[in-house]
């Protein structure tokens, strides 16, 4: 909500926003059907560009029956390319997170998208298993755009709705992984019916995701804004936003243990989602003797569930936070992700087709909602290194996918159903560390907030700046954020009298 009183002098200078905003000009409401600049426009630009990257990264799997004949691939080649497609983004996400902190999400994401578009164009001219692996590897880097969507949403939406915004942007982007299983065979069929040969048609088909990706990057650059007040560089030049140093951003990110725990747990919701995207079609095809087409539709439905499941996770996070604050967010995350693990175990053990599809859909809901819930917590871990923490968490997701595929789904050590059951067990084990996440000002799963009077939001976020930097006034952004994040104390905080005239002058 707008802060009256000392904000009035600023209001006459600041631009009018369509949505209600807080003191950082972040929107306090999330209106899905609006395209108002800058908040909702940023939302739509970020999810569409992320969707395009997902479509490109997973464009090959539905066309593999044709590609494997054209390029003479073996099952090992296909498996390796699948692992390569998700491994590149593991480190690209960390790099992009840092780039967002330094240059802003608009430039960072558009740069990545335009620099990986060539890999998608070159897929059309791949001619061997090696070149196929390389194009899938480099195309996969574009999945790092996830970090810029989360960073962008965290910069545009306030604490009250950040979970929902993050969940919707990421969920609708992830949708691309399911949509592509339907889009690519359709485009391929159309091109072949026009008269092209099979081995040419699939190559031409790849121009579609490549062009979509290029155009979405242009849209981000032309219509997007990094922050509600404008873009990074003009703001930095005007002195309204201080420029930060890479080494400081890096240091404060990697020394925050919560970032590492969330990286691990995200590996076992999002990582599992990526793994399932890669193996589920084959699983249904082999175990239940389905046609490839049918198995593909079932596989697509796992990814398409993202349209509601991930945003629902974000909504649940925000709803729980209203009453229980950060502790509620952590509990909800732990419960939903652990249940995801339980349903994964059941999926591996179920014998009939109908039951398998049902369990898979329930499993997809919990798995993807857990992803949404994770990014209800991430925006609060660090303010200075938000991008890096988002990147670490996102990167952890991809590493989880690589690890899980290597352990359970490479070669013939485990049957697919046994692999799925064991993956479920691993989900439960790797979700447990959430119990150790503790915020002094809000508490953790098992402990309440610290009883020390110094344990406040300001104390937590300003600990990322040293005295020198505070003297230069570099910490002002974090200060505002700390103030706005007080809602993470939960329902009981509303009844506390907000010390409206307690100015943060003590920290200047």
């Amino acid at each position, binding site marked *: 909500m707008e802060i009256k009183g000392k904000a009035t002098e600023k209001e006459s200078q600041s631009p009018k926003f369509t949505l209600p905003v807080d003191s950082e000009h972040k929107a306090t409401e999330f209106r899905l059907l609006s395209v108002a600049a800058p908040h909702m426009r940023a939302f739509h630009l970020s999810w569409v560009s992320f969707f395009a990257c997902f479509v490109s990264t997973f464009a090959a799997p539905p066309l593999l029956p044709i590609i494997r004949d*054209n390029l003479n691939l073996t099952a090992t080649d296909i498996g390796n390319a699948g692992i390569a497609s998700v491994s590149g983004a593991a480190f690209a996400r960390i790099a992009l997170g840092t780039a967002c902190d330094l240059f802003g999400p608009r430039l960072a994401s558009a740069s990545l998208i335009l620099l990986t578009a060539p890999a998608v164009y070159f897929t*059309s*001219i791949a001619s061997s298993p090696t070149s196929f692996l390389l194009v899938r590897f480099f195309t996969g880097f574009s999945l790092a755009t996830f970090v810029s969507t989360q960073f962008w949403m965290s910069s545009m939406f306030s604490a009250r709705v950040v979970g929902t915004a993050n969940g919707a942007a990421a969920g609708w982007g992830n949708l691309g992984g399911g949509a592509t299983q339907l889009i690519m065979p359709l485009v391929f069929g159309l091109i072949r019916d026009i008269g092209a040969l099979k081995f040419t048609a699939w190559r031409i088909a790849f121009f579609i995701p490549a062009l979509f990706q290029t155009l979405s990057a242009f849209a981000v650059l032309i219509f997007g804004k990094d922050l509600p007040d404008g873009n990074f560089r003009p703001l930095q030049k005007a002195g309204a936003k201080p420029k930060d140093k890479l080494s400081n951003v890096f240091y404060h990110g990697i020394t925050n243990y919560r970032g590492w725990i969330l990286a691990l747990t995200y590996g076992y919701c999002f990582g599992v989602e990526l793994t399932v995207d890669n193996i589920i079609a084959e699983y249904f095809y082999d175990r239940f003797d389905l046609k490839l087409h049918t198995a593909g539709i079932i596989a697509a439905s796992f990814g398409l569930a993202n349209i509601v499941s991930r945003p629902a996770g974000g909504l649940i996070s925000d709803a729980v936070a209203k009453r229980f604050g950060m502790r509620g967010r952590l509990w909800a995350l732990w419960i939903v992700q652990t249940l995801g693990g339980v349903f994964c175990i059941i999926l591996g053990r179920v014998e009939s087709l109908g039951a398998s599809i049902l369990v898979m859909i329930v499993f997809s809901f919990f798995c993807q909602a857990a992803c949404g819930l994770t990014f209800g917590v991430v925006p609060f871990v660090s303010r200075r290194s938000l991008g890096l923490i988002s990147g670490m968490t996102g990167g952890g997701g991809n590493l989880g996918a690589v690890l899980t595929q290597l352990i359970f789904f490479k070669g013939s050590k485990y049957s697919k159903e046994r692999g799925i059951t064991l993956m479920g067990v691993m989900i439960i084990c790797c979700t447990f560390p959430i119990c150790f996440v503790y915020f002094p000002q809000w508490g953790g799963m098992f402990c309440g907030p610290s009883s020390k009077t110094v344990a406040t939001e300001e104390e937590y976020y300003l600990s990322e700046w040293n005295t020198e930097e505070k003297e230069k006034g570099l910490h002002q952004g974090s200060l505002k954020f700390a103030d706005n994040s007080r809602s993470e104390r939960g329902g009981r905080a509303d009844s506390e009298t907000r010390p409206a005239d307690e100015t943060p002058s003590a920290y200047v």
Partner: protein
Amino acid sequence: MAARRLLLASLVLSCSLLPCYGAVLFSSLQKTLAVTASPTSGQVLKGGVDKITVTWGLNQTLAAGTDSTYKTIKVKLCYAPLSQVDRAWRKTVDRIKKDRTCQHKIVARPYNSANKTFQSLEWTVQRDVPTATYFIRAYAYNADESEVAYGQTTDAHKTTNLFQVESITGRHMTMDVCSICFSVFSVVSLLVFFYIEKRKSKRSQ
């Protein structure tokens, strides 16, 4: 007791219906057809360009009446074991309906048991045939469209008389040029945007 009888009866009934439901096993077929093809052992054929001449007919040394049920002959291009390694989508299984060894149809011709001459066909290797090692097999079908006999150009272990096909790449010069142009365009447009941004911020100062 009645339930058990019903179960048994339905099992027997379904077993007798099996041939209609494609449960014919390859191991149950007799090799009665003689099939020869023009490619020599180890020859490499180019997809879309080179031709194969296939000749097939009943093995003359067999007793008369062996071919009384044959109605159709289908000649197919089949993958040799070398091209099946690590490729489960080309797996050989005994149940012919599930067998994925022979995925490319060369020709299907009706069979007349009265006509004892060998039939032949000159077939251009189609452009959707992938690069692999192959042999040729012919299946004889009865009136119910079930396999009843076969013949192939190689031995029982599928090791002799194999030939290779080199498929088209599917690439065209235009496509190569477009890929490179669009890629360069993407990168250059990014640099152009950076330049415009820099100019804008300099001007606004």
